[in-house]
């Protein structure tokens, strides 16, 4: 029983750093290796067409935020399912009813969200 020690994650770490290193390397390499002209025109987001004005940061509708919050809630709910699924057989019917209650409660909440019309995009 010696699995799950931090050392066992070394391959993961190596892979992670390889992936990161590749991305960083490509970005730097493409910047410094290729020929490059620098001018104000060149560094504009759009080189041709209508000149861009103002800031990209515009205030936006609170609806997006509401949906993002609801997403986070259900995201956390799903995470609770992972340790349950791993132990599904060991926990048996007890665990199943437990999870059924949990999910049932949240699904009732989800039904409420739908009924309330939160997910309807252009309703007045």
């Amino acid at each position, binding site marked *: 029983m010696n699995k799950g020690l931090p050392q066992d994650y070394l391959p993961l770490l190596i892979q992670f750093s390889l992936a990161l290193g590749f991305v960083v390397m490509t970005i730097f390499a493409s910047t410094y290796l290729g020929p490059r002209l620098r001018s104000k025109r060149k560094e504009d987001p759009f080189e041709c067409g209508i000149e861009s004005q103002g800031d990209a940061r515009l205030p936006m*509708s609170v609806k997006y935020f509401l949906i993002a919050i609801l997403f*986070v809630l259900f995201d956390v709910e799903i995470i609770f399912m992972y340790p349950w699924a791993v132990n599904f057989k060991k926990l048996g019917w007890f665990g199943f009813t*437990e999870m059924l209650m949990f999910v049932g*409660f*949240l699904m009732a*909440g989800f039904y409420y969200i739908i009924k309330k019309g939160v997910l309807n995009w252009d309703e007045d």
Partner: protein
Amino acid sequence: MHFLEIIKNLSLVQWAFYFLSILTLYGALGTILSKNPIHSVIYLVVTFFSISGIYIMLNAQFLAAVNVIVYAGAIMVLFLFVLMFLNLKEESTEMKTSPMLIAAVSTGLLLGLILIATIRKAEITRVNYNDFDPNTGLIETLGMVLYKNYMLPFELVSVLFLVAMSGAILLGKREKGESHF
């Protein structure tokens, strides 16, 4: 060169720990010190990732994964959303050298001092490596504890979610005839 000797003799795990700790602190300081709030959020992501690394070193792999998925992923997006609500074109000039800032910093330093002084004196019972079960932090073990012993708090978390859900809808839902912003 006592200090250099110590550095030379650090084990791999210690290297990893110090690296992650410094990264965590760097991210945390960057979060509160950077002028641009978007940069703050990115620094916070750095902190979350390095905390996840510390979780892995503590053998809490599931927590590390959850930390990345929920905090570095979802919650940070929410933070960015909030920043987008605000009009951040002009930098706020508040809190430069106000007495509030001085009070806050000195209180924080005092608290840090007390914590360090106390923890330095504290006697910490160390884990015995020989009879320590390395599977403690694995998902199987965690699941068994969560769904057997901590059944009631787990079910009540759904009530907490419902409160958050209905609260978000109550506060965030646009009323009839309100403008889009």
